């Protein structure tokens, strides 16, 4: 069967409906439905506005939160670090001056920017969403076109509510089959990145498809889309379906009444046409996936947890060999060491990848009635005030505390070293976050990316472990 020339992929459909202006030889001018901001990447953008005497065009489509600098053990104002404090104060002043809604530290709506958008119902199918933060791709789980931008672009969106953008290439990643019960969304995305590499998605928007993706909850889909950027992709998205609609119905900013029906009609059209062509197609069998752990210093350096640290000589390409050797040196790992024999110092459960209620439920179920290995530092940082409240209503915090975990206030925490939660040089961490770059969690720190289930089991075992390994 031939392809209909007008057949389009989901990302192309969302793109097309946001084009404000198109001209030969110029990038498309896209309208932005939602602009999320936080304290780190916005101060210079607001300065730019002031310098030119420009207002924020649509404060009503702009939302701010405080997350990166938040101290998660004591959220009470003021922040001890004067530089962090100044950055948060600058955001507060800017939001006040330009009339932007801000969720301050300690307020119930506050949390990691990519956690609060969906939970407030602000993230909806078919929207364009941007933020001065690469993990904006998270919102693609709802079938929105959501991508990270730099500070110059933040200023551009503040001033015009639009962005000139080059049309991205399209890529589909289909995960077929049925996911084994031992595997989670995190293992799916780690395996995908391991397969396509850190540059595999550059220039593209990835659409995740297939039975395994369909079977994931919204939380799981957000975990997958969150790490699209780790494969280099501009964005990642998943066509909305009943799972999406059920998640959204009744949320504070979701349409209600007749508007809900109108929205549903529209959202149901948001899927790639059957004969739409993708520039790149990747198919993965999800049925034989196993839990994954990263061993190196980029997120494509991952392996099944049942295996061992690879030997650099095993890589065909010279550049991969060099990168692996460098990574193992930084990570303090000898080739061929079984992962389950590597002792771990710290377990961090949190970040915009895995700090939602479902992640905490999974981790709590693993540690319930068990104890964190003596000497291990283990802590749980809910992604938002709402997640924290929900977890406490379910008693999850008691489970964690009884097991020996610290129970913290919402923020980015040990995902990146901008607040007091840091690794010390040489410290080894099993982390549910998204980046294992050198120094990401603190200078000299050694990060291993894992799922919440593996992180929880590792806290109990003292070395990398899956829940199945615990007796």
């Amino acid at each position, binding site marked *: 069967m031939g392809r209909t020339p007008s057949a389009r992929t989901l990302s192309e459909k969302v793109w097309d409906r946001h084009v404000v202006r198109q001209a030969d030889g110029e990038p498309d*001018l896209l309208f932005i439905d939602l602009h999320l901001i936080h304290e780190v990447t916005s101060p210079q953008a607001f*300065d730019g506005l002031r310098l030119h005497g420009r207002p924020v065009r649509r404060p009503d489509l702009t939302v701010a939160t405080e997350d990166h600098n938040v101290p998660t053990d004591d959220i009470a104002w003021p922040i001890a670090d004067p530089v962090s404090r*100044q950055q948060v104060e600058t955001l507060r002043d800017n939001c006040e001056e330009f009339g932007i809604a801000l969720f301050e530290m300690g307020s119930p709506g506050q949390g990691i920017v990519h956690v609060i958008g969906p939970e407030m119902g602000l993230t909806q199918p078919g*929207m364009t969403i941007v933020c001065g933060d*690469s993990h904006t791709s998270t919102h693609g789980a709802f079938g929105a076109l959501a991508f990270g931008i730099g500070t110059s672009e933040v200023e551009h969106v503040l001033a015009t509510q639009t962005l*000139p953008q080059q049309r991205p290439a399209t890529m589909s990643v289909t995960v077929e089959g049925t996911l084994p019960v031992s595997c989670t969304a995190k293992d799916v995305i780690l395996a995908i990145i391991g397969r396509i590499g850190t540059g595999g998605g550059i220039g593209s928007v990835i659409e995740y498809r297939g039975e395994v993706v369909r079977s994931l909850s919204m939380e799981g889909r957000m975990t997958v889309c969150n790490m699209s950027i*780790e494969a280099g992709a501009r964005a990642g998205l998943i066509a909305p379906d009943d799972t999406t609609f059920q998640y959204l119905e009744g949320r504070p900013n979701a349409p209600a009444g007749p508007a809900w029906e109108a929205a549903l009609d529209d959202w149901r059209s948001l899927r790639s046409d059957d004969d739409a062509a993708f520039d790149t197609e990747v198919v993965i069998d999800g049925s034989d996936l196993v839990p994954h752990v990263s061993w190196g210093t980029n997120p494509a350096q991952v392996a099944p947890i049942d295996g061992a640290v690879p030997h650099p000589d095993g890589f065909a390409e010279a550049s991969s060999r060099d990168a692996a050797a460098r990574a193992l040196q930084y990570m303090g790992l000898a080739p061929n060491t079984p992962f389950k024999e590597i002792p771990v110092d710290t377990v961090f459960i949190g970040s915009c990848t895995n700090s939602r209620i479902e992640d905490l439920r999974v981790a709590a179920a693993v540690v319930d009635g068990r104890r964190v290995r003596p000497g291990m530092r283990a802590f749980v940082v809910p992604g938002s005030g709402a997640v924290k409240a929900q977890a406490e209503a379910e008693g999850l915090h008691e489970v964690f505390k009884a097991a020996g975990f610290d129970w913290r206030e919402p923020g980015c925490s040990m995902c990146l070293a901008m607040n007091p939660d840091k690794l010390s040089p040489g410290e080894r961490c099993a982390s549910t976050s998204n980046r294992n770059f050198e120094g990401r969690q603190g*200078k000299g720190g050694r990060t291993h990316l894992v799922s919440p289930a593996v992180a929880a089991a590792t806290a109990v075992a003292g070395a990398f472990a899956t829940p199945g390994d615990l007796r």
Partner: protein
Amino acid sequence: MKPVRKITATALPLDRSDVDTDQIIPSDWLKRVERTGFERGLFSEWREDPDFVLNDPRFSEARILIAGPNFGTGSSREHAVWAIQQYGFEAVVSPRFGDIFRNNSTKNGLVPVQVSADTARSLLDCVATEPATQITVDVERLTLSAPAAGISAEFPLEGAVQHRLLEGLDDIGLTLLHTEDITSFEDARPAWMPSLA
């Protein structure tokens, strides 16, 4: 933004792949609210190693940075571009750039020169052995050349981006010329779309 037409300078060989923006500028430096003063943060953790190439006096005059593939992946921090530029580099050469880094570069007048893996390899090797090699990046012709080493290559840049670099134009000013288009787009948006008004 200042116009950028042609850069002729020596280069620094950063022979590594997957140089992410966390390495270019570690997160400690992200707390600043200013747009200047980031040069000291450039590769600040790697610079503690005396053997790191940035500490090699033979390359102290370099204004072109040459790296392996996947340069500038990871975090969206524009601070990475500010740090590279404020340190004194005017162009970065790599076989593949992170998308956001690439965008951020052009907004600030730092030229992302994307060349084939073979060209990058030859450049890295020739600059490492002959640090005085002069390299020219020509934004008008979209070419990179190192005549002494017999290297010449073309690099891609979208027409509109090239135009903005050559003229030193500011994006926001250009977009505001189309305010009417934006207003009519806004008028046609469905009323049920979320808003915080």
